[in-house]
């Protein structure tokens, strides 16, 4: 079992910078999800951990072993690829046994481990089947098994569930978590699907444009995004972000949100850090607002999206797009003007210039 240390890690491909200044400590046995949109550098990071590509700068250590120049076959990592990379000229059994055979594990031991793993992943009835022609769900399960059977100290998964169907994805999320509890590997999981990251990971590392933006527990990152990108990226729908300007009115600090009107007074912590007249981004989660008859933001309803359990209202004028999540019987129709009251403790302010959170509002 091994911890992973990434220090000032960077990678450039020609003039393109895929990753810069990445610092991340992954503890022994921890499950960390690298989360971000495509092209954010998460797969590059993963490939450097596995040794598939060498970093342009910085250092990777497993425990206190420097990984520079160590070929991937000697790193003791397991890697599951998005496209499974199953050896289609072999049977399911041969695929599972492949790594064990390559590293010279004795036949009896090999058979025992293959059978155990097949049992664990419900592949036993398929062992003698050729791998070509199996369904994608089975292939991905097989790919996970083929890596896990080597009992790697570090298990790297590169978007393993993005090709399988939704129902199977839910099953596999549970199984992967189960697998990690069973084998206690250090797991790094690359995904662009926040649901996977939120449900499985101990900690989430959110990345964008080759930069690590925030690391923390799923709840912490969700509740206290460190900048506007993380705020908008996490959550479905993401955090509402409205440009405004902090103003002093009646002795309390508020945010002037233009046509939507003035915000409710800000809490103490936010008031202290937001100087008057500052350009800010006012953020709140769609589930943290209510319809009210009293004071609040006045917004037209552009679209009512009913998704079963919930109803999402799309509100706002011009450039604003504000979403609110309500229960499915909310008595609102398209074209209504509603007044939104926002729970003051759940308001987040960001600097409009830098995009960074203005204060930690706990």
């Amino acid at each position, binding site marked *: 079992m091994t911890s992973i240390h990434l220090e000032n890690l960077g990678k450039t491909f020609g003039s393109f910078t895929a990753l810069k200044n990445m610092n991340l400590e992954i503890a022994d046995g921890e499950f960390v999800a690298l989360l971000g949109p495509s092209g954010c550098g998460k797969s590059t990071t993963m490939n450097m951990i596995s040794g598939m590509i060498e970093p342009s700068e910085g250092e990777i250590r497993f425990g206190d072993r420097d990984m520079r120049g160590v070929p991937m076959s000697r790193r003791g990592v397991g890697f599951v690829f998005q496209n499974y*990379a*199953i050896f*289609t*000229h072999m049977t399911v059994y041969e695929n599972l046994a492949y*790594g064990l055979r*390559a590293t010279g594990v004795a036949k009896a031991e090999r058979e025992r481990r293959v059978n155990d793993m097949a049992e664990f992943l419900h592949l036993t009835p398929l062992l003698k089947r050729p791998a070509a022609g*199996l369904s994608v769900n089975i292939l991905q399960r097989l790919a996970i098994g083929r890596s896990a059977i080597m009992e790697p100290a570090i298990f790297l998964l590169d978007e393993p569930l993005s090709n399988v169907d939704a129902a199977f994805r839910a099953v596999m999320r549970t199984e992967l978590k189960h697998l990690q509890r069973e084998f206690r590997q250090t797991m790094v999981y690359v995904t662009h699907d926040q649901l996977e990251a939120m449900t499985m990971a101990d900690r989430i590392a959110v990345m964008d444009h080759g930069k690590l933006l925030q690391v923390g527990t799923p709840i912490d990152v969700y509740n206290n995004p460190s900048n506007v990108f993380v705020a908008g990226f996490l959550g479905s729908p993401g955090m509402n972000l409205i440009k405004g300007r902090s103003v002093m009115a009646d002795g309390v600090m508020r945010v002037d949100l233009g046509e939507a009107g003035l915000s409710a007074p800000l809490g103490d912590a936010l008031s202290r850090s937001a100087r008057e007249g500052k350009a800010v981004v006012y953020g709140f989660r769609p589930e943290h607002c209510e319809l009210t008859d009293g004071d609040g933001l006045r917004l037209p309803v552009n679209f009512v999206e009913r998704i079963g359990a919930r109803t999402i209202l799309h509100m706002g004028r011009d450039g604003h797009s504000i979403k609110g999540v309500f229960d499915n019987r909310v008595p609102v129709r398209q074209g209504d003007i509603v007044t939104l009251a926002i729970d003051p403790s759940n308001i987040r302010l960001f600097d409009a210039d830098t995009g960074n959170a203005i204060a930690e509002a706990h």
Partner: protein
Amino acid sequence: MNRSLSFEIFRYAAILAIVALSLVPTLWMASMAFKPIAEWSATGADLTWWPKSPTLDNFRFLFGESSSDLIVALDRTATQPILASLLAAIFGTLIAMIAGTSAAYGLSRFGSGGNLPLALIQLRIFPPMAVMIPVMIMWAFLGLIDTWYGLALVYGIVTMPFAFWLMKTFFDDMPREIEDAALVEGCSRLRVFWKITLPMMRPALASSALFVFILNWSDYLIGLLLTTRDWVTIPVYMASLSSSMTGQLYGAKAALGLIAAIPPVVLGIAIQKHLVRGLTFGALKQ
């Protein structure tokens, strides 16, 4: 409906016409191979589609048994040319496939080889005649003229670009992740190549090898220039099948043509499974 029906009729008529056009000469050759001299040398109204009195005389004649009707005897039988063609084509194909596959793999995976692809195309830009005379001189100097291995070497060099380009496209299409997966599990590069890459490439190897073999097998020009007597190939030998008394020995030529058709057809059938299957790396997201 009607329109598409008439279109279908037209389509099948066109296909039939093309098939007939290409099959008729082949069938004619097959028929002629079994005709006695009186029939294959006949003209006008005496021409028949089917041999009236089918005989194996033409084949016997090729392998040295003099025919009662034909008063010519060959100064050498077809045995040696068939052997020459087989050896030169098989070893030429081996050389081309081994060199071409290795080069293609190196270039496709590691980008090694620099301008190799272009250099290999250049080999094909020259008409063979332009380079064959210098090659002939070199081969004469090296004592490779009229040897099966000298011929095989040239075949290998000449067809290697085809093997290279075919295999390169196949390697390019094979996802690297498959090899990476094996590498990460502790396999050496060489083992990955032997146990994973090549087995998965079997269909590609089979179809490329067949293509290269047919090229080598049907060569005339190089064989003509580089062999003189002991190791002349089937096409060269075939051209010599004539006599001053009867002119072209069409019956014997047809019989030899039929024999020459056997290896490609047999090979084709043998690897048909691969050819049909083509390159289906079924288990990968495309």
